């Protein structure tokens, strides 16, 4: 409901900013300053891909924990069965997504869009910032699981706690699926 409220707010304010920069259109200020369309779709598409892949890594981590006691004969089975590898890969992908977001926020501020500039800036930074905060919490959760895995190992008995973390991570992913379409792609 939090994200529905934030997405609703963004959509309600969409197209109602009096001054630019705007998400999809160029804008010339009364002083003659030119602003390009602010959203960088290629960069956001890359970060979306990274987050989608992180969900794959997360299910592989969960499967590895569940199958910890199953004998692994081949190298491929050992790789697929390494919960440490997939938990680390998920955390790295999440951190990469946050890096993309930090880059995006920084470039927006440099191009003249802050949270106080206009309605678009306020609703955009609030929505994506809250999502980024959830991703950050997810990365911390994953690193905690990884440290437990290194200290005593995660096995089938721990599958429930890994599954709960996985459900949270996929929730963050599906929220981004909605944000990517509604905020970035629909003009």
């Amino acid at each position, binding site marked *: 409901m939090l994200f529905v409220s934030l997405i609703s707010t963004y*959509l309600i304010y*969409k197209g109602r900013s009096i001054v630019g920069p705007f998400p999809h259109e160029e804008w010339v200020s009364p002083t003659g300053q030119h602003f390009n369309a602010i959203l960088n*779709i290629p960069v956001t598409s890359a970060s979306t891909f990274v987050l989608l892949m992180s*969900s794959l890594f997360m299910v592989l981590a969960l499967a590895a924990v569940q199958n910890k006691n199953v004998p692994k004969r081949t190298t491929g089975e050992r790789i697929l069965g390494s919960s440490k590898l997939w938990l680390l890969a998920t955390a790295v992908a999440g951190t990469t997504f946050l890096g993309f977001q930090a880059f995006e926020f920084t470039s927006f501020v440099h191009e003249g869009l802050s949270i106080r500039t206009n309605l678009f800036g306020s609703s955009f930074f609030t929505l994506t910032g809250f999502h980024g905060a959830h991703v950050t919490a997810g990365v911390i959760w994953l690193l905690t699981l990884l440290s437990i895995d290194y200290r005593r190992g995660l096995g089938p008995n721990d*599958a429930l706690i890994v*599954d709960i973390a996985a459900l949270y991570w996929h929730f963050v992913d599906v929220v981004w*699926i909605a944000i990517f*379409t509604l905020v970035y792609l*629909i003009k």
Partner: protein
Amino acid sequence: MADHHTHSDTPDAETHVSGEVHHHPGWSTYWKVALILTIITVGEVWAYYIPSFVASRAFVPSLLVMSAVKFGIVVMFYMHLKYDHKLFRALFTGPLFVAAVTLISLLFLFGHLVARFG
């Protein structure tokens, strides 16, 4: 929540004490799901860069459909709702329905959809 015993290369079934049978996706299913999600995302971005399509009435509905399909795939396979007890399905889809109604109501209330649909 899904059972926490077996995930193998092929979907398998387990019979529980209650007699209920749970199927689980295997690694190959997870890879296929990731591939489908990637293809749909590429399709979304591709559609964004076709000016004639962006100008058409089909643009927004097609993006919403693609996004909904991605959402559904992640929920059904990665969040394993497809394999869960129907109680968990209801616990997920119920609030999701409330959230969707809230979003649409807010958009009507503040005039965004009223302006679009009269």
